[in-house]
């Protein structure tokens, strides 16, 4: 397996629903063909209404998350207010482009709720933002998850339905990728709460 993006493996997916968003990720932390742990965190809560999912090189996943955590904390302190999801989506793009000639080897997905309206943005590793789609994927299993998403997804799903659809898409996609899987976590964010569910998946 060549490629820095295939070194650790992993998959993420984000979806929009009716006044809600969902993110899902696998839980594998591996080094090429060997699996090290099965409880690695890849989705981070940046703020009560913003989730950041990262796939790619695990070292950069951690570093980039720490950088974004720092940015949002400083913003909260300086501006004395919460950051809007669309602002954060732009911040991610700028932070990635800042490292244009020595990039972070990550493909992030940002999801949030702005005044009840769902926001979903995805990027390549140097910060090209794409925020017009209803679902996005990332990671080594991404292409396989796309297929499952196209089959299961419908616009304006309720939070319960969205949780079911995103869970199924992640699991079906990861089952065809040898570098992703070993568990799954689904996060569903609504105006009222964030629900986190651990999926029972193949552990092979």
């Amino acid at each position, binding site marked *: 397996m060549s490629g820095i993006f295939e070194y650790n493996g992993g998959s993420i997916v984000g979806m929009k629903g009716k006044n809600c968003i969902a993110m899902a990720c696998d839980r594998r932390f591996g080094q090429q*063909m060997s699996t090290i742990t099965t409880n690695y*965190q890849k989705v981070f809560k940046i703020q009560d209404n913003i989730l950041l999912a990262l796939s790619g090189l695990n070292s950069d996943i951690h570093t980039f998350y720490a950088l974004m955590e720092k940015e949002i904390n400083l913003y909260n302190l300086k501006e004395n207010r919460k950051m809007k999801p669309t602002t954060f989506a732009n911040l991610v793009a700028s932070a990635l482009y800042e490292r244009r000639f020595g990039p972070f080897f990550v493909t992030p997905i940002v999801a949030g709720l702005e005044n009840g309206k769902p926001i979903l943005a995805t990027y390549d590793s140097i910060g090209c933002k794409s925020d017009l789609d209803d679902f996005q994927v990332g990671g080594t299993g991404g292409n396989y998850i796309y297929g499952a998403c196209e089959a299961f997804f419908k616009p304006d799903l309720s939070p319960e339905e969205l949780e079911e659809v995103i869970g199924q898409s992640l699991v079906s996609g990861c089952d*065809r990728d*040898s570098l992703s899987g070993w568990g799954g976590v689904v*996060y569903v964010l609504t105006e009222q709460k964030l629900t986190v569910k651990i999926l029972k998946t193949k*552990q*092979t």
Partner: protein
Amino acid sequence: MIDFDPSTFGLAHTYQKEDKDEINTLSMPSAPQVIYRSLNGPTQTNGGNKLNNFKHGTTTLGFVFKEGILLAVDSRASMGSFLSSEQVRKVIEINEYLLGTMAGGAADCQYWLAYLANHCRTYELKNGSKLSVAAASKFLQGILIGYKNSGLSMGCMIAGTDLSGQHLYYIDNDGMRLKGDIFSVGSGSTYAYGVLDNYYRYDLSLDEAVELGVRAIYHATHRDTASGGVVRVYHIHQNGWTKVHDGIDVVDLHYKFAQQKGLVGDGDEAKQRLF
């Protein structure tokens, strides 16, 4: 006069001429010829990095114990990181008293083990007695030495029963042939050896041996990305071989073993932060 015609020079051609005489039954297509031998050494497979060589992406194991030989294999086939199948049959039934395991190139293993089966049957008909395991494995070794450095990829175990008992051989594309009591082949073999070496005893009962084989394969499938699917188990005894398990799903095994330890098995034993 030695024939210097390049198309027939070398060991490979001898295996074609063999049975062309009387027995005119369903003869196998001619064995492939090596037309050009590279002077550059072994054909590099997958950039020469053995650990990432997906052609050996598998876990197979076999061990000798007091009730005969146990073979256990996984069933995953991957093309790079894409899983092409989870239902492959990696134990090839050569005949009723010989089994071969597949690791490396599937096409290579399937073809040459079928070729071996043909040879064994022809020998049996010509000579009135079955070919011994030692002779069958040596025949295969001879073929592979003839194709050395041409890029064949095979790491198989030949296990069977004959008049002198049950025997296990390891054969690979480099021409290595080893007789032994415990072998594990493939990318997941390191994980399987860990379990196998820990609990192996010659005087295991059949049930204990099956349990050991299944466990070793399960642990390899959990850690190795190129192994997975289902576990298939075969037992070789003095009357031939028996298929003990046609396919136990390793996912079920994971949750069963976790439950035995009092855990859920979803990776949350360490109670990691989720968000």
